[in-house]
């Protein structure tokens, strides 16, 4: 009898292994582990798709259709930390065989989890997660819903799409060449891109800080009292259409672009001899601040 108990962990491990290996032969994988309702879930996969959804269940549930380059899927939960890693074959061509290994990973996490997702060419999608989120992909697109907590999304060449639900949050969205789109959000946004287009809707916005080298930047929404809007681009156009709770002071500068507005203020030359135009002034109470600067892009400001 004692011998049987001693053998029990080994038998369980063997059975678990059999389940996983059995899944591998069909290309499908399924596993569920208990998880802290407010813990951290870390997910990584190279290519294909990563879909994460929040649920009321205190468990992390993984379903995957594995590509041929996948060696195994690691699902571990320890304390308040759960990891889901898709591990490629060690000597395969998987690492540099981008896009050919189509692994589709679906992960259900407790809705209040903190989420940390990392993909390479994988498209990442997250919905229904209310905790803080950190989502990264190199060339894949990232699409996410925001809750009331911070969200940080980074992609090199993929596009970033984030949809809020009007709850104030702090958002950081960065790409190198991918476009950035934010809708129905509120709170603070810090965003940067080199050549992507930035389009952001914040209502209300407490802060909007945006930078690009050649990409256009558009902000639409409403400015909270004392809000701070600062957008800069070397060659891109900057457009801010924002109603405000208590007006705003504005300061617009461009070296070779045009300045237009919807309240008939006229831009003037920056200096007596040098090139450039500027437009300074105040709308309403002037409690918020709007600063738009570009070298060769056009500037457009409207208070409605």
């Amino acid at each position, binding site marked *: 009898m004692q011998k049987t108990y001693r053998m029990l962990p080994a038998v369980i491990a063997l059975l678990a292994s059999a389940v996983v290996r059995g899944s591998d032969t069909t290309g499908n994988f399924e596993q569920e582990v208990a998880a802290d309702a407010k813990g951290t879930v870390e997910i*990584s*996969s*190279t*290519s294909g798709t990563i879909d994460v959804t929040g649920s009321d269940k205190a468990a992390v549930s993984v379903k995957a259709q594995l590509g041929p380059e996948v060696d195994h899927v690691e699902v571990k939960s320890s304390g308040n930390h759960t990891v889901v*890693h*898709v*591990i*490629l074959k060690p000597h395969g061509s998987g*690492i*540099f065989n*981008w*896009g050919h290994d189509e692994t589709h990973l679906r992960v259900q996490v407790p809705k209040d989890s903190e989420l940390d997702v*990392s993909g*390479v*060419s994988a498209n990442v999608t997250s919905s229904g997660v209310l905790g803080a989120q950190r989502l*990264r992909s*190199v*060339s894949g697109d990232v699409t996410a819903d925001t809750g009331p907590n911070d969200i940080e999304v*980074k992609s*090199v*060449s993929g596009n970033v799409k984030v949809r809020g639900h009007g709850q104030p949050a702090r958002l*950081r969205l*960065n790409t*190198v*060449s991918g476009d950035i789109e934010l809708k129905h959000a509120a709170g603070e946004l*810090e965003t*940067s891109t*080199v*050549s992507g287009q930035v389009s952001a809707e914040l209502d209300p916005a407490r802060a909007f*800080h945006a*930078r690009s*080298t*050649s990409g256009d930047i558009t902000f639409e929404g409403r400015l909270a009292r004392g809000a701070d809007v600062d957008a*800069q681009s*070397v*060659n891109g156009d900057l457009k801010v259409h924002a109603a405000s709770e208590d007006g705003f002071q504005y300061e617009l*500068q461009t*070296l070779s672009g045009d300045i237009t507005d919807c309240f008939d203020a006229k831009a003037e030359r*920056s200096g007596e001899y*040098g*090139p*450039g135009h500027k437009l300074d002034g105040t709308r309403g109470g002037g409690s918020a601040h709007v600063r738009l*600067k*570009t*070298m*060769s892009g056009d500037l457009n400001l409207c208070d409605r």
Partner: protein
Amino acid sequence: MTEQGRKGVIRSLGELPQGIEPKADLWPQIEAQIAGRAQAAPAETTPVSRAASGTRLRWLAAAAMVGCVAVGVWIGHSVPLGGAAAPPLATAGHPGAGALQTAWVADPRYQRQHAELMRSLGDQVAALPPASRAKVMASLTTIREAKHNLEEGLGKDPGNALLQELLVNTYQDEMRVLTDVREASDAGKGI
């Protein structure tokens, strides 16, 4: 309050005296001081000293500008946008950027990091997915062209604060991209 005290209280502006004479006439003393300064002044405004003063002012303006750029870079370094690495102070020494630009003191830490990132850039870009490679290279070209244009603009108008600010930010953005590319290539290897 006593009756005597009430008499001393001023009830309207009309009760105030029209003028208060000083105990002594101070004007002769002030006049003498002004005359003394006027005699000393011509020696300070000779053409040679005016030229020296102008040169000094130009150097002071140049030093102030370098100081402003240094402060901007330092602020950018302390509060990086999107986790950008250390920003630069030195420029690529574009010929059109003017002599002032060569005076910009190089931040050795930036130069070291930048050189290191540029050295490994080829390998890092090669490790990226094909879809990303061309886009990253195009973005780096965009940044290089933007730097070139800004430096050219500063060569024509060295005191332009807008161009200075955009140039410093573009250097920061270049470092951010190089850092992101390194992280992205590391992520590919790590998974």
